C-alpha cells in the first residue's frame, strides 16, 4: 500500500531541512503513524523503510525504542497518564487504580469498546499542575477522579 500524496509531499518537504534524508525519519513517522490508524503494522514498517531507503530493521528499532510509536493496534484515542514522582505525590496512583477498575484497562491496554488505549507515561513536563494526562494532543492538568471521568467519558 502506498502513502497518500499529501503525506509524501510533507515528507519530501521535511527532507529539504536536513543534509541526509534519514534525519527526517522520526518527524515523518509521526505523520505516518497518524495516517495508518495510530500504529506501525508490519506493512507500514516495510512501506516506511522503502520510502526512506533504510532497512526494515532500522524502522522496527525506532518503533521499539520510542514510547510514542505503537507496535500494536490502538484505540480511537490514546490516553497518556503521568506516573512519575510529582504526579504520584499529587494523587496519580489513585487515578491509575480508578482507570483500571472503572474502564477495565491497565497500562498498554485498550478498552473493550475500542475507545481508548491507556498508557502510563513518565513525566510529561506539567509537574506544577500535577497530576497530568495527555489525551491525543490535548492536555488535562490538576486532575482528580471527577475531572478524569469527565474527560474519558466524553471521548467518542
Amino acid at each position, binding site marked *: 500500500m502506498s502513502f497518500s500524496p499529501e503525506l509524501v509531499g510533507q515528507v519530501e518537504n521535511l527532507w529539504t531541512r536536513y543534509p541526509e534524508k534519514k534525519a527526517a525519519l522520526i518527524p515523518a513517522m509521526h505523520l505516518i503513524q497518524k495516517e495508518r490508524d495510530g500504529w506501525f503494522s508490519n506493512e507500514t514498517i516495510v512501506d516506511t523503510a522503502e520510502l526512506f531507503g533504510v532497512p526494515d530493521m*532500522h524502522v522496527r528499532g525506532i518503533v521499539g525504542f*520510542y514510547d510514542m510509536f505503537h507496535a500494536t493496534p490502538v484505540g480511537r484515542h490514546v490516553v497518556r497518564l503521568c506516573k512519575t514522582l510529582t504526579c504520584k*505525590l499529587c494523587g496519580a496512583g489513585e487515578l491509575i487504580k480508578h482507570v483500571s477498575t472503572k474502564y477495565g484497562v491497565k497500562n498498554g491496554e485498550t478498552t473493550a469498546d475500542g475507545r481508548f488505549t491507556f498508557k502510563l507515561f513518565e513525566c510529561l513536563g506539567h509537574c506544577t499542575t500535577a497530576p497530568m494526562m495527555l489525551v491525543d494532543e490535548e492536555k488535562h492538568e490538576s486532575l482528580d477522579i471527577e475531572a478524569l471521568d469527565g474527560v474519558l467519558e466524553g471521548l467518542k
Partner: protein
Amino acid sequence: MTRETRVMLEYADDPAQKTLEGYRENGGYQALEKALREMSPDQVTAEVETSGLRGRGGAGFPTGRKWRFVPKTDKPKYLAVNADESEPGTCKDRQIMERDPHQLIEGSLLSCYAFGAKTAYIYVRGEYPHSIKALEDAIDEARAANLLGDKILGTDFCCDVWVHPGAGAYICGEETALLTSLEGNRGYPRIRPPFPAVEGLWHCPTIVNNVETIACVTHIIKRGGEWFSKLGCEGSTGTRLFCVSGHVKRPGVYEFECGKFTLRELIEGFCGGTLSGRPLKGVMPGGSSMPVLRADELDVTFDIESVQKAGSSLGSGAIMVFDDSVGAVGAAVNIAEFYSHESCGQCTPCREGSDWVRRMLLQFAAQDARDGDLDLLMDVTDKMDGTTICALAEALVWPVQSFVRKFRSEFEAAVRESAVGTATQ
C-alpha cells in the same frame, strides 16, 4: 526576601507576545538587528562570556566557553537546541516555547551567528505538541518577515531554524543521544571525546544548548553581558527559571535571581509551605536525578555553588517538595522505575544495574528484604557510578543513595518488618 525577577518571563502573561507583532512591540528582534549590523560574531561570543551565562540544561557549563570549542573549519556547523525537557519535575522550557517562542528563535539566530552555524534544529520532546505548534507558528512568521532564511534583514547572514520533534525517550535529552536521535536513529549516547562542539551532527561541529540558555542569549545581546552579570550572584549570574512542584501551597514556574534567599525561604515563604500543613520531609532541588535534601538541610543559599556544597545541585531547576506523608522507600522506588525504564541499554552496569536496583527497592517496599540487602544496594549502585557512557546511571545512583543515607532508618525498618513477616509465616 524571595521575589521574582522576570527577564525571560517578563511578557509571558501577555497572549500577544506569542505573535511577531506583539514580540516586536516589546523590543523583539532588536538584539538580532544590533548583532547583525554592529557586532562581529566574535563580539557576540565575547558578550556571552562577559555575562557569565552557564548552561541551564543541568550541568551548568559556561556557554561562551563551549562556543569557543567550535573549530575554525569550512565544514557546516550546527546548533541543536535541547528542548527535550524530560527530567522529572522540569517544565520550564515549555514556558518559553509556548508563551514567548520568538525569544528562543532570536537567541538561536544570535548563537548561530556567533559560532558560524547556518542551521539550528530545536529538538522538542514529542509529548509537547503545544510547544511544537507554537514554535512552528513563530518560525513561519519570522520567515515571512525575513528574520530567518536567506539574507536576513538584508545582511549577508543566512540561517534557518527548524523544529524537530522527538518521540518519547528521556535519554534523548542527553546531548550525544539527542544528536544520534536527530540523525534518525535510536537515541544512543556516544562516547566522548570527540565532544559535539568538535564532532556532532553528521561529523560536523555542533553546539548543544538548552532552551533557557539560548533564550538568555537574546537578553544578553539586547541589554549587554555586563547587565546580565550583575543579576544573581557570582557563579550563578542572570535569572533562572525554577519549577516548584509537589506538596507546596503555591507550585509554579518562577524566575529568580540566585543567591538572594535560602531554599527554606523559597519553599516555606514564597511558596507558602506544605499544602497539607504537615511538616516538610525533603526537597529534591534540581530534578529527580539529584540528591535529596532533608528538611533540616534547607538553610542553604539558593545558588549553584552553595547547593553543591550542601551535597546536591540545582540541576535542571526542578524543585520537588514532599511532606512527611511520603515514605523514603516509595520515593526511591518511583525514581528507580523512571531511570531503569529510560536506560538505553548500551552499558551493562546501567542496563542490568538499574533494573536490579529497581527490583531490590521493590523488595524493600514489599517488606521482603533481608539483612545485608541495604549493603548490597549500596554496593551495586557504587559500581554503576562512573562506569558508563553517559550520566544516566548516576542520575539513578545519586538520588537513590541519598535517600538511603538520609532516611536510613526507614530502609532498616523495612528489613526488620520483613523479618517479622517471615517469622509469622
